[in-house]
């Protein structure tokens, strides 16, 4: 008999892995268990309820099952009124074997009905009992109120006709009502835990990383409440992080486009009027001034047009495109790298007809990330003459190097730097290199860190 209620201890969805904590039993479980055990030897009602509370995952389904209790054949509808203590509203559910209709109502009404049922002696009710209440219960009904730990409940079962209850029916209901209390507790608690579990599972499912249980080392790993250690493992394709990332790029692209539109008209106006003044002004000094203005305007227009091209995808890049991209990344990272000398070099001769088949936006993102990382490292620990050199090998197989003379990565950290959430920056997300590595994989290549004397040296290699 005892083991009947033990099944509430099993996690309903073991598929999520041992990393997720298993169900806790209700706090007053032992007390409930004793009550149930005491009752079960006394009535068949308890057996029925044990089976149903095991089978059902929520209170609505549980009430629906009550309609199957032997003796309840004439009862078609269960009305389940529930008030969670402390809340200003209660909910009523009208349940039949095939339907459910739920509505919230004010707790005052609930309490009035609760008291009315509590006070009544013979517990069968007709329509007069409902006068003054806004409840729709057809036919004659049996009702009982229950005061539980966190909830107050009213259970009503009704017939679809106006005949009186038989003696058997009344005693069946009484029998059920006398033992059902603890089962309500269990089923409500189970319902709550299932909801909580679903939320947690949803959160885990939406993590772009897989939660993996590991043997564990308390210095290196975080511990779950269940006592187990876990690690986050990047999914092969890092799909979800990519999606967030790509969304941000998409938003950035849109922003730049809007900016371009807003600025393009005024700039065009400036350009045209500057041209006119250049022609009209005769005084040499003023005329020269005007020409400087005109040239500044042209430069502004080309900056805007370049920026937006940066975020337009193309699938193949020429040598020139790559050089342009490097220059644009330098421009984009200017604010982070003011005092840093940046240069671009070619490795070996360049193949004139070199064409790199790669997604230009992803390539730009990788380069941008590597350059920003270098700039930040140099800003925090820069030596005398901070420098970032970008080198490109414009022959197949393609290579792109980003080298700086900053502190470089610690020997011990080298294998960790590409891991998600690993960062040595105070405000770092630890995702930049992980995302870059995954973009590199998408491009059919990889990023490697080359340990060298001083500074960091990253190389992106793409297969031809």
């Amino acid at each position, binding site marked *: 008999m005892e083991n009947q209620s033990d099944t509430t201890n099993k996690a309903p969805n073991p598929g999520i892995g041992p990393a997720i904590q298993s169900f806790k039993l209700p706090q007053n479980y032992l007390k409930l268990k004793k009550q149930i055990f005491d009752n079960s030897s006394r009535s068949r009602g308890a057996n029925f309820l044990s089976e149903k509370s095991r089978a059902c995952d929520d209170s609505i389904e549980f009430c629906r099952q009550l309609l199957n209790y032997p003796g309840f054949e004439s009862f078609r509808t269960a009305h389940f009124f529930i008030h969670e203590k402390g809340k200003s509203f209660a909910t009523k559910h009208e349940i039949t074997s095939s339907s459910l209709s739920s509505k919230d109502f004010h707790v005052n009404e609930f309490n009035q009905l609760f008291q009315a049922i509590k006070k009544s002696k013979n517990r069968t009710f007709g329509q007069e009992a409902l006068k003054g209440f806004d409840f729709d219960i057809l036919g004659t009904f049996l009702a009982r109120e229950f005061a539980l730990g966190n909830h107050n409940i009213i259970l009503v079962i009704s017939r679809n006709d106006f005949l009186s209850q038989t003696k058997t029916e009344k005693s069946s209901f009484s029998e059920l009502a006398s033992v059902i209390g603890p089962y309500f507790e269990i089923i409500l608690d189970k319902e709550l835990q299932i909801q909580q579990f679903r939320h947690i599972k949803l959160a885990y499912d939406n993590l772009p990383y897989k939660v993996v249980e590991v043997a564990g080392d308390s210095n290196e790993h975080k511990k779950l409440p269940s006592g187990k250690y876990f690690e986050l493992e990047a999914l092969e394709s890092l799909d979800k992080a990519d999606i967030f990332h790509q969304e941000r790029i998409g938003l950035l692209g849109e922003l730049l486009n809007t900016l371009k*539109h807003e600025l393009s008209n*005024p700039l*065009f*106006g400036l350009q*045209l*009027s500057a041209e006119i003044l250049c022609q009209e002004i005769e005084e040499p000094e003023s005329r020269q001034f005007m020409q400087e203005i005109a040239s500044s305007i042209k430069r502004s227009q080309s900056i805007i047009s370049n920026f937006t091209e940066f975020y337009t995808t193309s699938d193949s890049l020429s040598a020139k495109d790559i050089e342009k991209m490097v220059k644009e990344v330098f421009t984009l990272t200017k604010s982070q790298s003011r005092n840093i000398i940046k240069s671009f070099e070619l490795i070996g001769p360049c193949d004139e007809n070199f064409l790199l088949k790669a997604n230009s936006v992803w390539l730009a993102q990788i380069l941008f990330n590597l350059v920003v990382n270098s700039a930040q490292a140099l800003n925090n620990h820069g030596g005398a003459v901070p420098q970032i050199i970008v080198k490109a090998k414009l022959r197949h197989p393609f290579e792109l190097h980003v080298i700086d003379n900053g502190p470089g990565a610690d020997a011990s950290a080298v294998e960790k730097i590409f891991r998600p959430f690993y960062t040595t920056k105070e405000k770092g997300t630890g995702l930049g290199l992980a995302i870059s590595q995954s973009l590199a994989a998408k491009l059919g290549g990889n990023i490697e860190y080359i340990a060298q004397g001083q500074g960091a040296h990253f190389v992106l290699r793409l297969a031809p």
Partner: protein
Amino acid sequence: MKILVVEDEILIQKSLQIFLQKRGAEVEVSSNGKDAIEMILHNNYDRVVCDLMLQDITGFDVIEEAKSKYTPDEISELFVIITAYSSEQVLEKARTYNCEVLNKPFSDMQEALDIMMSKKGKK
């Protein structure tokens, strides 16, 4: 040649006016669509250089109103649309009126002015 320039960016409006006047055209201007419609209906222009994004209504709305005075063929001859938009949607709609469309900023100023002042047939 009598030209109406409908453009709400003042510097562009005034500059285009001067450029076209230097080429010998008589140029009137409007900064908004509603005034432009009035002017088109009451005067007889040889050409209307019209921006799409105006403060009150769009250039397309202006063209629609002009239809009450001109036939579709005349419309395609009368209007030169100038716009900063390069989206397919917008270009397609412009094409339905069958008039010249110039993208701002003009890559070649002289060519743009040629189109504004020439008889249609340059399509």
